[in-house]
């Protein structure tokens, strides 16, 4: 029995993948594991034995409307409909977390592991779900959690993957115990990857990494309608190379703990509600000691600590209305330092994040209104208050150099509102449209960053405490049809963002980083526009054959018509899957158009088109009570040399990679 709170934003993410004719086990690695939940527009990628060895970032990349910015083979940065960084909300099991690296080498997605996830849910646009207080939607990593069972059960899952490219190894083990009263889930994983080789055999230096992760979840049934859960996660990556950047990472370490209380059938007004309190702490340390030709050795540690709590509730059905509410508070403190060691001189020191603390409180309400059998309208509003402070005089003194008054904090209300209208044309066809207004508070780097080097455009970035919040008007139209053998959907959108935040070159201030092109100060553009579409199609040819395909495109421009930097070109994937009872195989064609709409001011360079062929074959074995799965996966089989437009520094992507995966289920 699944004790998930359907209807809560978290719960929505757990809506399971609709059963296709294929046995679940046989949907392969690169599967079309997303499905549109029409009303909420949340795309959920379930993690199963079939994709457990695919890095989180690659799973995100396969989600509609999503992309990743890479600086190497590790910790790629998610992007939703070309919104990035703090324009999107990234949460771990509903917990707010913020990376500790000033150069975004540690997006939150890098602190989890596919094998400890239940699913990844992605929603687009402002107020996409009640959890979101940014412009571009949300991405939540749902951790695997313990559950209950009438008869006590203990099961285990163990897996190992070997990769030809990178000489990589990935191991994980899980233990799951369930009984009537309590459940326990334990997991540990370890990965080690060497440098990868681009198509044609060129070694990409400093692309290696190692990582371990442990997760524990304990669930206890307090009563028939109350569940208490305790979560713990520890993740540590060491010796991580970033080929796009002038330095690597020595340690990236996160500790996460949370307590969750769920209450079902709560009363006449409230159907169910859930509360959570959490804490997480991240330590991140860059490392340039292994690089040749470093002009000066430097240490760059960063810290980020967050604690928070939220309450989410869902009402009973009142005639044709149903309400959801959220109340949330969190506090994030961040500090980053840089110390440089010149020869025969005193070390040089500065704060790059000058002891910043942000307090955020938010409240949101959503109304699901079934107007009649054909129309339904979902309205939601959310109001947040962001308060940003520099907590130490030492930190304040840094920003005062630029003439900013940072003595008082910045208090900023952030509002978002969304109307989503769905029309059921007939039993096969749904049409929907939505209109949203959303705001985003500038983030820590944008407000208070102090000489943060951006390796993509080669500028040192300086924050601006006088930035205005971004304000977006977003419109979207969509259609989805499903028939017995085929279903497809299309979503098109247009977003107009006022006060879009971007760097503007300041020729007066000297760059701090040796060899940098200059200094950029964050500033508000009058506006920017983002538009595009996503489409997908699933076609079951027979019981054994399935074709899936998708395409996505965004077109983004500054107010002057100049393209925004780092925007992906048109991309498509078409995949053919075959499966019988124990064997399965698939082949995938992945194509990306050239990107010639570039903004060379920001380090963009035109990127040629490329196409790749991926394939895999596997077999499921049953050996008594043990299920064994063996699989060969091939990625970029033709060993094509290509660049992804969203890769910093124009480094080539990985060439042919064959992995051999084994999974035991006991």
């Amino acid at each position: 029995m699944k004790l998930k709170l359907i209807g809560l934003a978290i719960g929505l993410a757990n809506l399971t993948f609709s059963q296709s004719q294929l046995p679940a086990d046989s949907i392969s690695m690169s599967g079309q594991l997303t499905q549109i939940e029409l009303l909420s527009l949340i795309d959920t990628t379930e993690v199963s034995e079939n994709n457990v060895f695919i890095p989180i970032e690659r799973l995100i990349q396969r989600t509609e409307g999503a992309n990743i910015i890479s600086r190497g083979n590790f910790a790629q940065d998610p992007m939703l409909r070309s919104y990035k960084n703090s324009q999107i909300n990234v949460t771990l099991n509903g917990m707010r977390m913020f990376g500790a690296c000033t150069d975004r080498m540690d997006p939150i997605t890098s602190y989890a592991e596919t094998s400890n996830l239940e699913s990844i849910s992605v929603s687009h646009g402002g107020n996409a779900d009640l959890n979101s207080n940014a412009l571009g939607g949300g991405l939540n990593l749902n951790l695997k959690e313990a559950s209950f069972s009438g008869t006590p059960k203990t099961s285990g899952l163990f897996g190992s993957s070997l990769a030809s490219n990178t000489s990589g190894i990935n191991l994980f083990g899980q233990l799951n115990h369930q009984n009537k009263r309590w459940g326990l889930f334990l997991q540990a994983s370890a990965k080690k990857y060497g440098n990868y080789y681009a198509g044609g055999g060129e070694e990409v230096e400093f692309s290696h990494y190692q990582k371990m992760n442990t997760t524990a979840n304990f669930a206890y049934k307090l009563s028939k309608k109350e569940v208490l859960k305790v979560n713990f996660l520890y993740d540590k990556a060491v010796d991580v190379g970033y080929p796009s950047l002038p330095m690597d990472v020595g340690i990236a370490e996160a500790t996460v703990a949370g307590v969750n209380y769920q209450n079902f059938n709560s009363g006449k007004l409230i159907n169910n509600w859930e509360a959570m309190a959490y804490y997480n702490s991240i330590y991140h340390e860059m490392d340039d000691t292994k690089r040749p030709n470093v002009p000066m050795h430097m240490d760059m540690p960063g810290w980020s600590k967050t604690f928070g709590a939220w309450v989410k509730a869902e009402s009973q059905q009142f005639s044709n209305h149903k309400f959801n509410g959220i109340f949330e508070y969190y506090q994030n403190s961040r500090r980053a330092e840089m110390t440089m060691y010149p020869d025969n001189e005193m070390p040089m020191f500065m704060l790059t994040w000058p002891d910043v603390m942000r307090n955020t409180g938010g409240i949101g309400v959503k109304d699901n209104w079934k107007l009649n059998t054909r129309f339904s309208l979902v309205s939601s509003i959310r109001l947040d208050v962001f308060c940003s402070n520099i907590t130490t005089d030492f930190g304040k003194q840094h920003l005062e150099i630029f003439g900013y008054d940072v003595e008082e904090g910045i208090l900023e209300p952030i509002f978002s509102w969304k109307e989503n209208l769905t029309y059921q044309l007939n039993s096969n066809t749904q049409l929907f449209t939505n209109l949203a207004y959303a705001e985003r508070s500038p983030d820590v780097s944008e407000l208070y960053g102090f000489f943060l080097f951006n390796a993509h455009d080669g500028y040192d970035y300086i924050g601006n405490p006088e930035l205005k919040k971004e304000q977006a008007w977003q419109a979207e139209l969509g259609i989805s049809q499903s028939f017995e053998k085929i279903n497809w959907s299309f979503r098109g959108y247009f977003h107009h963002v006022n006060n879009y935040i971007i760097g503007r070159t300041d020729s007066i201030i000297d760059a701090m980083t040796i060899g940098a092109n200059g200094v950029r100060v964050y500033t508000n553009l009058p506006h920017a526009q983002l538009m595009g579409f996503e489409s997908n199609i699933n076609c079951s040819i027979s019981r054994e054959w399935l074709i899936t395909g998708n395409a996505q495109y965004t077109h983004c421009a500054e107010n002057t018509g100049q393209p925004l930097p780092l925007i992906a070109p048109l991309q498509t994937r078409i995949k053919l899957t075959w499966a019988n009872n124990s064997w399965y195989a698939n082949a995938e064609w992945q194509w990306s158009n050239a990107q010639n709409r570039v903004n060379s001011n920001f380090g963009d360079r035109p990127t040629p088109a490329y196409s790749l062929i991926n394939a895999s074959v596997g077999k499921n074995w049953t050996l008594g009570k043990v299920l064994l799965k063996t699989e060969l996966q091939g990625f970029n089989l033709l060993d094509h040399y290509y660049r992804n437009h969203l890769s910093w520094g124009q480094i080539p992507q990985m060439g042919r990679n064959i992995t051999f995966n084994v999974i035991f289920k006991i």
Partner: protein
Amino acid sequence: MKIFKTLFIPLLAIALFATSCKKEETTPTTPTEDPLSEYVLISESQVNALDYTVKVYAQEALFVGYNYILVQVEDNASGEILNNPDVMFMPVMEMNSGMMHACPLEQPTYNTSLQVMEGTITFVMPSMGMGKWNLGLKLKNSSGTEEEIKIEVDIVQKAEPQLFSFISANDSNQRVFVALVNPRMPKIGINDFEIAVYEKQTMMSWPAVELLNIEIDPEMPTMGHGSPNNENPTDMGEGHYLGKVNFTMSGYWKVNMKFKTSTNEMMKDDAFFDITF
């Protein structure tokens, strides 16, 4: 519902309170017992004619440059520290060559909170090897009796010079001495940049130089960068010029300076102070 109320309401209260953006109150620093405990005792002398004990304090060991000198005068008869005693600085260097010269100074005024006479002396060379510095103090009591005492002091040259001199490019008879007054405790951020400028007219006459136009340009030679929003020092009177220097990071900074006359004729275009912190 009960748990809902007991949990939700406190949470709401906490969140609203914590998000209120209140400035945290700083705890006041506790005053130290002896107001002079942060200073260095340079000497303690008896003034026999007046029956005084004179203690000389400074912020640190005396050095070549701009020194704050604090003089505490105690009446031995009453055991009390005198308020606003009549004290005059008369520093003299007796050089090994037999020559004698004075140096720039600012005669002391009374500092009520510390109960001392406070002034400054800008020593222009170290005592080591060059000769002997005498910190001459002339004291006078209310009945007009005066006595001059000589206190031999050791003047050190700091590793990072706090004073330099140059011959004006505009006037080869003008020898200018520039002492760094601030920043004493340099920090990342905006620092007061204050210098005191004097000239040597005769061996015993070292008046302040006023009405100069001074430009500054800080840089980190190791990194090859400077800093934004510096303010050139402007004339504050009595040879003092006050501006702002911004340090974007700690480490070795070189504050380059140009000195021009009031009519903008260049006196020195390559002066600098090294400031490392």
